């Protein structure tokens, strides 16, 4: 487990917030996913040991929540809303445009490792549908043209690295 020092500090701190250690399972999973981008199997065992529970207890929690990832994702995480307003305003087309741009499918890591595209439920910006959340930035009224523009920007940034 190669966690950053600050993550480890946060983990030790957050455990003290709860009367029983096991309650810290969720916050620990969040911290580790933030740090590593996903939750490897080793992390489940690491958390279990840390909280003095069995790995199966952590495994249950990880699989219960779809937002915990057990596999690594691309460098950028593109989340396209598919709930009603966005679906009506062309969210599916936006998603397909992203897929075409990065030559990948939903839920997969693009071949160049740049992005993972996913459908998500309502991002609470129905007035500016369709919306896309890229990592932590909200992009509004993302039609196909804007999707292409955003994709180009991501590719350009990736080249600079």
């Amino acid at each position, binding site marked *: 487990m190669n966690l950053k020092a600050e993550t480890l500090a946060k983990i030790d701190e957050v455990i003290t917030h709860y009367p029983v250690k096991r309650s810290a399972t969720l916050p620990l999973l969040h911290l580790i996913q933030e740090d590593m981008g996903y939750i490897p*199997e080793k992390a489940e065992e690491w958390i279990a040991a840390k909280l003095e*529970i*069995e*790995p*199966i*207890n952590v*495994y*249950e929690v990880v*699989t*219960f929540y779809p937002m915990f990832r057990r596999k690594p994702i691309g460098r950028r995480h593109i989340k396209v809303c598919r709930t009603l307003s966005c679906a009506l305003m062309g969210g599916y087309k936006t998603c397909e445009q992203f897929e075409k741009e990065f030559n990948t499918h939903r839920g997969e890591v693009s071949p160049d490792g740049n992005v993972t595209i996913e459908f998500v439920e309502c991002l609470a910006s129905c007035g500016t549908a369709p919306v896309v959340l890229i990592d932590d930035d909200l992009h509004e009224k993302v039609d196909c043209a804007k999707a292409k523009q955003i994709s180009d920007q991501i590719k350009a940034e990736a080249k600079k690295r």
Partner: protein
Amino acid sequence: MIQPAKPADLVTVNIDGKDIAVPKGTNVIEAARLINVDIPHYCYHPKLTIVGNCRMCLIEMGMPAVDPATKAPIMDPATGKQKINWIPRPQIGCGTNVSSGLHIRTQSPMVKDCREGVMEFLLINHPLDCPICDQAGECKLQEQSTGYGRGYSRFVEQKNVKPKRTQLGPRVTLDDERCILCSRCIRFSKEIAKDDVLGFIDRGSYSTLTCYPGKTLANNYSLNTVDICPVGALTSTDFRFKMRVWFLKQTNSIDTESSVGANTVVWSREGAIYRITPRRNDDVNDTWMADSGRELFKSVKSADRLTAVKVNSADSALDIAINAATQLFKEGGAAVVGSGRSSVEEQFLTKKLADALKASVSLVSRVGEGDKLLVSADRNPNVRGALVTGLIKSLPSQKLTDLAAAIDAGKIKAVVSVGEDLAAAGLSAAQLAKISIVYLGTHANATSVAAKVVIPTQSVFEKNGTLVNQQFRIQKFARAVPAPAGATDDTVVLAKLAGVAATDIASVWKLIAAEVPALTTMSYANIPETGLLLDATPFAALPFVEGETLHYKPTAPVAATA
């Protein structure tokens, strides 16, 4: 769990119009059971924690009405009785503990609706493969869909597909489609077996019972999960697809693997045993037993089973063998090796034989490691029986060193062994060759090969008898299957050898009641199925080897397990 309570701890509840006094803290399912009202349930198990996730035990509940201001009872003018304020929504019976004045309805239209609704949801993704399911005939889902279901399906969609044959461990196979997610197995593994490897992963319709990747359900209590699984999801790999349960005869028996004496049921058909399951005894094994005890029946049909009476290695008949043995004894210098595996009756007759021969008696001790649950350190099921019957005065040792010394000194010429392998108990081949051995036993071993007289006897599944467990609880086992031809009941053989007139277990017990002070009031018939506690005080000073197990705390200082 209902504990015996003082009258002060009793509260009166009303179930379906019937008043009943039950101990405080009893839940509604157990309270209803006391008046023979069945509240269907899946996830609730009396020996496990309550989670309330199956929702099958929904009931209607109400409390007598009182005026909020004055606390005066509000009377119903129509009946002249106190009005009952019924809670408009159903409550779970398993998670509701009774309180004084509680009113419960288990048969109202709302309860009926609830049960039908819950059953319908449970059956949505259930494969209904009862014709090939091992649980059929003892399946709660099957029984309760007949009893409480709506009777027909409205489900037209596709059923979920899940893994059909996951090996959870060496003895347990999981059919995930049949699982109704009651979590009994998970709680058992965590709370009783202390091996928390099972859990539900994913969610909603995809929830799946699974082991943590890389781990297996391999503990020695894994098959209890199969017993408590209310449906056919967890099945015993050994019993799977072997036999329909309704063809099997159930015989009460005792687990002989250790001095815990777990109560069991032996399931047999046409002389063949198919499985052994635990029988509930709240003072001994609750509702559990070890996996190792369930395999014991396999030795019944093993290839090394003794079936022929032999005298000097030639086939013979029982009476000739008895005469031959008697001739050997007449030469003098006889010793008896009894057994902690014999029943109380056999040990009593072994004592009679030893008395008749004026012979010394030794027993062989078997000590393993206790698992603090249902396998104790003493692997002989009936050492205490030998103490109670007076066969031995002190605890046996693992090696027959005294006997070996006596043989070397030429004092012993003949040895009767009741099922004990003398070679394994420390006698050398040279020592065995020096003596004439009369061997009574079920299976071939070095002693039966060296013996002058071999009389095949019966296994615990083929005869009646009693055993005294570590708590000094005398418990009886009954004959489940007939013995193979050639094997004679040990009591008959021992009675003949000892010259005692006793032909069956009832007549042996007449003698026991007359001669053994601790058992004077007893007969085989009047020992209850859950056993009878004997007075342990005469033996309190003995250093028994057992450590703490379920429902047993050692009182005397524990001897070191060597």
